[in-house]
């Protein structure tokens, strides 16, 4: 039982760390460019930052659509 727990624990740690590393190094919004209506950020943390600031939403296609003009500002009001 103890060995099983330790094995599953190690597998999960490796899996979690791999996903985290992949997310940090990959792009969350493939094809996102600096065109109007799209977020300029390509990395997942940056895209997350902009979504967190109620600046955009990710569409089913994977592209993050920009909703506000200045996504770097902190949210002035509740996004909902």
């Amino acid at each position, binding site marked *: 039982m*103890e060995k099983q*727990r*330790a094995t*599953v*624990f190690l597998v*999960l*740690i490796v*899996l*979690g*760390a*791999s*996903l*985290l*590393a*992949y*997310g*940090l190094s*990959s792009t*969350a919004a493939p094809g996102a460019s600096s065109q109007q209506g799209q977020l300029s950020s390509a990395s*997942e*943390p*940056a*895209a*997350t*930052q902009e*979504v*967190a*600031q*109620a600046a955009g*939403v*990710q*569409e*089913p296609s*994977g592209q993050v659509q920009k909703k506000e003009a200045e996504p770097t500002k*902190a*949210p*002035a*009001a*509740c*996004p*909902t």
Partner: protein
Amino acid sequence: MAIVAERTRFAGVFARLQPYRLWIQTAFLAVWLAPIGTRLHGFCAPVFHCYGCPLATFGCPIGMLAHFTTPFIVVGMLILFGALLGSLFCGWACPFGWLQDLAAKVPTPKFDPPRWLGHLRFVVLGVFVLAIPGLFGIEHPLSICMICPAGALEAALPSVLSQALAIEQVFWPNTLKLTITGIFLVAIFFIRRPWCRVLCPLGVILASFNRVSGFFLRFDRGKCTTCGRCTRLCKYNIDPEQSPNDLRCIRCLECTRCQLGALTPSTVLHRRPPAVP
């Protein structure tokens, strides 16, 4: 013997901290509420705290799960924290849990919801966090951010107040969100942690790791006298003797106050001591 002594020291740390849990939760607010204006919304903390809050340091993992189709960072982070600590953050660090614990201090009659209601958390996670935002978009009126009471209290309320103080047009949250928040605000005085026990989608993700996490509760059957004290100590209607790493456990560690030492916090690094003949 050295291993046993080390395990005892480890358990002793939590035994000393346990009476100050509410203070520790309060201290964690300094991390979540951006005390020096730090905004790291690109990363999530494993706690239920709306990123729309004017003082939020980190992004909300549930909000991020709802917003993104492939949130590798959030999923990776949830697996890491879950695998390391299970639901320990729920009991000791979550600001939304802290609010509910604070309300539970008010001396009102307390009721326990039926145990099966805990499974509703899976429904909330599957339907309102993943399915609806994934199929219909985050702006669907039933997606989690549109109905979340944490969002109403931490983001919408400051927003409404600032609009009112600035004598601007006030944008109220939608009726469903206000209703859920109203029910929540009443429930926290009569049920201990109603959100965490019945609806929290983050809690159910983290607690799903309780049975395999590196940090866990060890039950020593040899020391147990089946006095039932641990069951009485648990405020969340769990029987720690039967299920020390239960799916509904928030790891407040109240049950470890068993004076016989039958329930102790432990980790995968601490091996089970040999049974006393």
